[in-house]
């Protein structure tokens, strides 16, 4: 069965990049444009793995992860944070919010797919 990855990013470029890399690797990709959209999409369609950006309008990535972990259905769904910010503070915050791991932008498609594979049950 093909696994589904939900990607959340306000940048169309980034969504396209993720889509290309993940579809090439055999994943089904669904997309959302911000945290609120992400929570709605996740609730409606579900996902095996979530990849989210941090800086987004309406609701940022931290808000999304907190919201996702508050939902019993998605407490154990792996969630990778996609960010250009590599400082420890941001990662600590993401981890505290419940992020499973992170991918530092700009990402290499191989690294991305590997990270997804590592956390995908």
């Amino acid at each position, binding site marked *: 069965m093909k696994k589904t990855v939900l990607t959340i990013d*306000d*940048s*169309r*470029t*980034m969504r*396209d*990049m993720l889509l290309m890399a993940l579809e*090439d*690797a*055999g*994943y089904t990709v669904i997309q959302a*444009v*911000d*945290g*609120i959209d992400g*929570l709605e999409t996740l609730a409606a369609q*579900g*996902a095996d793995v979530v990849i989210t950006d941090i*800086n*987004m*309008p*309406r609701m940022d990535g*931290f*808000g*999304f992860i*907190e*919201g996702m*972990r*508050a939902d019993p*259905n998605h*407490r*154990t*769904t*792996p*969630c990778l944070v996609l960010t250009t910010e*590599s*400082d*420890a503070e941001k*990662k600590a915050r993401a981890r*505290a*919010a*419940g*992020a499973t*791991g*992170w991918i*530092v*932008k*700009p*990402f*290499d*498609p*191989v*690294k991305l*797919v*590997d990270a*997804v594979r*590592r*956390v*995908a*049950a």
Partner: protein
Amino acid sequence: MDAFEAIKATFFQECDELLAELESKLMLLEQGQTDLETINAVFRAVHSVKGGAGAFGLEALVRFAHVFETLMDELRAGRKPCDTVTIKTLLRASDVLADHIQAAQGLAPPVDEERSAGLVHELELLTHGGEAPPVVEEDEDDFGFVPMAFDVPLDEPLPSLGEPEAVAPEAQTGWRILFKPHGRMYGSANEAGLLLRELGRLGPITVSVDDSALPTLDVLVAEDGYLTWTIDLTAAIEEKVVREVFDFVEADCDLTISPLGGGAEPVLAFEDEPPAVLPASDELDIAALLAKAAGGAPAAEPAPVAVAPAPAPEPEPEPAPAAPAPAPAPAPVAAAPAPVAPIPPAQVAAPVAPAPVTIRVDLDRVDRLINVVGELVIQQAMLSQRVLESGLARSSGIALGLEDLELLTREIQDSVMAIRAQPVKSVFQRMPRLVREVADMVSKQVRLVTAGEDTEVDKTVVERLAEPITHMLRNAIDHGLETPDERVAAGKTAEGTVRLAALHRSGRIVIEISDDGRGINRERVKKIAIDKGLVAPDAALTDEQIDNLIFLPGFSTAAVVSDISGRGVGMDVVKRSIQALGGRISISSVPGKGSTFTLSLPLTLAVLDGMVVSAADQILIAPLPAIVESLTPQEGDLHYVGGVDPVIRFRDRFLPLIDVAMTMGFRDTPVVPSEGVAVVVETEGGQQAALLFDAIQGQRQVVIKSLETNYQQVEGIAAATILGDGRVALILDVDVLVTDMRRRSSRPDFKLAS
């Protein structure tokens, strides 16, 4: 175009949107709206540019965006004030950012090193207060994701476990890994089982689990640990590679990795539970076991703990006596009912799409639709004409049905045109920058006010508006506005105002550019025009006529050609480019109070307002914007220069009279002028002439059809159109007719085929 290039194209498209967003938010900041949401929006725009640029390796752009972003980060954290100086710097930085994007796109030369570096320095000064600039952080830090040392086949998300054995089949060395997860690790959806699966990919593993929690390390936090995993990994690999498996969970577990003393050692047995020894073999597929345990449908699984690592008892946080809360992970922030957004949805998708629901459509498709609808309109008109000719009563069912069809057809045409319509915003948004730069250059204080940005016009027209608006704004600042000193002396504010507005008026778009400057100096304008021989010294001109002299070719009021509106570009050029679009331009001015330029344009370039004329049995279309007046030539007004070339008197001037049918070879002998109609036209260059036709049939909006699609350019013909009777009519190229063909009228190169 491959997928990567396509995404790159998307990126640059998105950059345009982000720049527009950036500009408008910076304008808000400038107007004093320095709330966190606005600052955040600016941050996000720059951040997204940087993110995408990084993905495409656009280093100069990344470097600049990074410095910009860093300052924005300081501002949004409230560590630095968002004051006037900062905002001015941000505005200029956004200009440089735009230039970097242009350069990255290959649309412009690389950004001037000095200019970019200067702004980088300014931004850094504001960020750090003069400290040494930090290096752009492009590498992953300790916490960052590090590439694995092996290749993952991209088309196979879950490679088989057999592979690693091939890597080091003979290796007898390996690692013993002691791994003790904290409860928190599970809160972030990391699974011990998945980590084991990762280790299994590196080589054969033997796993045992100890729930008696024997702390062998002094750093161990006993409260959080229930299980300790001991994994013997047989693989000749570096310790780093093993450690990378635990990259994500390093902070949420205790981990010891020590060299295995050659070969796989037997694992210690525990008293209360037999060790779950897993044979390391090709048959072992932990992933499959996990999937089985998860019920095969992880996405739909409602149970929060259903995804359990199969080989060992689940280290759930729940049974932990020491755990203070059932859900330890989100503890610091768990209280937030996140999905409730305090921000109204109106602000939502700004960087994504201007309207709540939009689709992106290839322009080609829209153009195709517009073409087909154009043909539908023509076909409908033809049908109506045929029905009329057939003598059917107006009240007949067919005629009435046709009327309804005509209404529907027009509605379809309007709707289709509306698809391609775009707000002029995209052009208006480029102007604040221009105004800033021009104002700086001429040392004037200028405030730009815009209105009607949402006014829509056909995409092709939008694109061609930028140039004339640019020229007119330059002109308004350079010539219209006074210097601050002059303004204060005249009792005005030191800061001048330039207003740029768009509106719809009677089926056209009107752009107004007004300033509150000194207005037109009519005496001076008239004197220059006389000096340059553009008007007769004794000409009696109204104020309006004097104002409009500035549009004459060769007129320039600037005594010294300035950097700004000089460059050989006068208002005559502006007028010409407007006319080329089928537009008109006019000026009104009040001395001491300012001037207003008004330009009006058709809403689309796909149709044209034309005068339908006939000449030697041919129907021709003369573009209405070029027509000054039509008149019936009187014998007394006609003269023949050198006895051959006819001229006609028009408003005290003699204009060449061109027999169009003969010039075009539609007939061999000239028509008697007094039996025809003269149409006075003006070329884009301001040259006037009279075109002689047989008769005027009326005015009509026509759909423009290119001759070049299937044939080639024809001298004197701008394009073709299809008339109501289905025949093709040619649209005259007035400029060529007047300036070029007149010279050759007496000796046509070709004769029309008989």
